[in-house]
């Protein structure tokens, strides 16, 4: 159970949040221009690395805001939290 520092509400227990999987996978602006493989790449392919992973989290039982988290999957240490639309930090 980690603590997550919601950029809008402050530090809260993990139980208030839901994870939204890998971050920085933008929905294609023109899906119809993509072939099946390109669309499948967007739709299905996700990283699962040991180390720092960029993820989306939602403060579902709080402000309901989405934001980004850089988390080390090997020890759950949260390296950085930043808002939607911001660039991923260099870690």
């Amino acid at each position, binding site marked *: 159970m980690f*603590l997550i520092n919601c950029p809008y509400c402050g530090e809260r227990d993990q139980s208030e949040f839901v994870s939204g999987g890998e971050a920085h996978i*933008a929905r294609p602006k023109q899906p*119809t221009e993509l072939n099946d493989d390109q669309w499948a790449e967007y739709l299905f392919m996700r990283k699962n690395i040991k180390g720092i992973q960029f993820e989306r989290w*939602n403060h579902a039982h709080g402000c309901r805001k989405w934001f980004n988290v850089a988390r080390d999957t090997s020890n759950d240490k949260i390296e950085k939290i930043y808002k939607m639309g911001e660039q991923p930090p260099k870690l």
Partner: protein
Amino acid sequence: MSKNLRINNKQFVDETRKLSFVFNGKKLYGYKGDTLASALLSNDIHLVGRSFKYHRPRGIMTSGSEEPNAILQIGNDDALTEPNVRATEIELYDGLICNSQNCWPSVKFDIGGINNFLSPLLPAGFYYKTFMWPASFWGKYEYFIRKSAGLGKSPTKQDPDMYDHRYMHCDILIVGGGVSGLIAAKIASDDNKKVLLLEDKELLGGSLIYDDNDISKIDDQKSSEWLKKLIDNIKNDKNIIIKTRTSLAAYHNYNFLLARQNLTDHLSVNDRNNKIRQRLYKIRAKKVIISTGAIERPQVFHNNDRPGIMLASAVKKYIDYYGVRCGLENVIFTNNDSAYETALSLHKSGTKLNAIVDIRDNSSSEIVNQVKGLGIQIYWNHSVVDTKGYKRINKVTIMKLNDKGNDVIGKKIELNCDCLSVSGGWTPMVHLFTQSGGKLKFDNKDNIFVPDKTNLNQLSIGSAKGDFELDDVLKNSIKDTKKFLNIENSNFDKIDVKCSKEKDKKNIWLLPSDKPLSKTKPFLDYQNDSTAKDIKLALREGFKSIEHVKRYTTTGMGTDQGKLANMHALGIVADTTNTNMGDLGTTTFRPPYTPLTFGTIVGRNVGQFFDIFRKTPMHDWHVDNNAKFENVGQWKRAWYYPKDGETMYDAVQRESKAARESSGILDASTLGKIDIQGTDANEFLNRVYTNAWSKLQIGKCRYGLMLNEDGMVYDDGVTTKLGENHYLMTTTTGGAANVMSKLEDYLQTEWPELDVFLTSVTDHYATASVCGPNAKKIINKIFKNLDLSDESFPHMSFKEVKLGNISCRIMRISFTGELSYEINVEASYGKYIWEKCIEAGKEFNITPYGTETMHLLRAEKGFIIVGQDTDGTMTPVDLQMDWIISKKKYDFIGKRSLYRSDTIREDRKQLVGLLTDDPNEILEEGAQLIKDGNKNPVDMLGHVTSSYFSPTLKKSIALAILKEGKKLKGQKLLVPMIDKTIKVTVSDTIFLDKENERING
């Protein structure tokens, strides 16, 4: 009491309060302050149980949570009885009833004891190896194996006790109220930190509090006297919250910890009424200090498990703390100095100590010199090679060790004893440290694993960190705590500690014997009966990883989790394979540290509090009118309303008929409702639904289908345009929360440029849906001034009207195919409007119907229920709902996926109707569809998703998903059931009123 085992006037036991208890049917006595174990020992009872596999007699071995043998069944009540309770941990109370486990007919005469003599036939992995073939026989073996295995008995009735959960927050959490933990608590408190101090025993002080020798001195005082003053000081410290009888169960990441407090287990049963039994603390600590101490290790020699063989530290505690002699003829067997403290305690209490056997060549420490001075016989460089006495030890046989320590030489010497104190050194309790993700390192000097690296804000101090001598414990605890808390000075800086220092060390994991290993029983894990030879067998059979050896031999897998013997198992593996123990690593220590009751884990979340449920504003009316309820998500929805003993089938037939022939009323309040506002609301709807929304006019409603990005149907519902930039979306009952968060996700992350705001209003409105040919007349009676003509108020439109002061939103929409009005009012008026409809509908036999009838009515019309007729693999095309996919829109969620190579396959499973050849035969939902029953294996073509008997059509109807279903219309298929095969014909999905004439009444 025939033997004189009690030593009077001990400060921790109240001899004025005599308590009676029953052990295996015999009434015995102890005192307030005793544990069950000390009370049994004071009655000269060592034999308390039988071992798991060989059913060997076993006695109390320890005085703490590491106890492997003395695990008893407490209580004899079907609801309150508790198995596997360690006698060393339970405080004695008046009227305690306990029984031995794993023995039949009794602990003194156990038929399973024959396994002991068969033991050469029962090696490690015996059950795995023997009961493999033939596989079909397992069912027969299983009954007998399960009967002879297993420890205590579970309670058979519901637990009547109350349990509690509580969150706690602190600056510093200190786990363990021994001397190092107490010093750390004081230092932290003096620095104005909020401290939470947990101690699993009833009293603070750890093992130092009953220390009675005159060698250990702190500031020139007897160490226990010094400690008592510190405890008094801490008890009055406002910065320190102390929780005793509280053991830490789990240490999770981010310093989140769980601890269990016993609140009533030490009280007599009559004093427990209406009290909370146990409380689980969920603790968030900024910093954690682990001061859990160390556990003494036994030694591994032939027949080292007889009743009367105990840890030396336990024998000392029973004398010095409880005032109980564990035997009258004592022998001590050790490899280190700490057992000499036991020797002093025995001597001081006037208990006979026949000899000390020490595997070391000599020791010249202060404490050993003191024992030497008492004239006690010490056998240096000797080892125990055997013990005698089946139900209680009566002799030990010792022999001299050779120079290398790998064999015994010379003559056997027999010593009389009824209690053998064993010490093999100490193991720091690093369980919590490793649970938290910390990494250990091996200390070759003391042969122990000690805390090394951690990611968390934590510190291990005292013997939990590997300091065993008083001056190291105190001085290092003070130094490390100050550094951990960034403190310059403390009140302990000038502390003066005197203690005996150990100079000579020797450790042999598996002691040599005069017999070959195969003829001996050197036990490692007492509870699971695994011996050193099992470990060696596992290694010979190719198990190399310590985790595999553990599982194969079950070493360390009992309820004590191998607290005593894991180190020996590792040591023997290391020695046998010539590996460094540090490279070998340890097995994983998993929470809970000591077993937790299920009651503690669930706390108050039992019975009606197990899960929350939601009730509509009309709920009480449904209850009063005999509704049966079904769970839909968290909602309790009226399922059907049986009258005069009707079955569900009868009630549903009656309700359906009434709705089609006159009028019915449904509580639709549970449907998800999302209020959508903003200048881009219309564009938003275009993006999230498959159909087009641009031309929807104010006051009109439209059905929408929502997909996932993978093209599969996700949700559906009707959305009403309330104003220019204002919509009310309805969702399925079960999908409401998911739809809301999905839409929020898209708005916040993909389309932040859209000016749209979403508000969940599901609970804000109650909905009564009146349907049937007479619905218009009923609505007209309630809303007399409302023009209900089809011109003014057509199907799929909306009116806002007032009923007195109540604002009503009336939507003319239909899920049944009948003329239908849904009246939405603020939730607090829900029951009022419902009763108003019932009253107005009385003359038309308005019939309340539940979800089951709703399902039947919509199935007659071929309307899908998302989640029943779809399962996350159905596209709108599969559902034969191509009409709802806009061809003009450039994009919507899931559009691109609708022409992936997989979704355009024509042989996908598709929604169809089914008619049974026998119109009275009702299919079972979930039944499989096949074409040719003789084929093996048979092709499963699909399954029935919805099935009912239609009272209006007077025949059975069903919906199903079927491979290539669209092409198979009119074809005959088979539905195989357990006792018959039902013939069906594939049909259209709409069974009733294809022309939609009923919608206008």
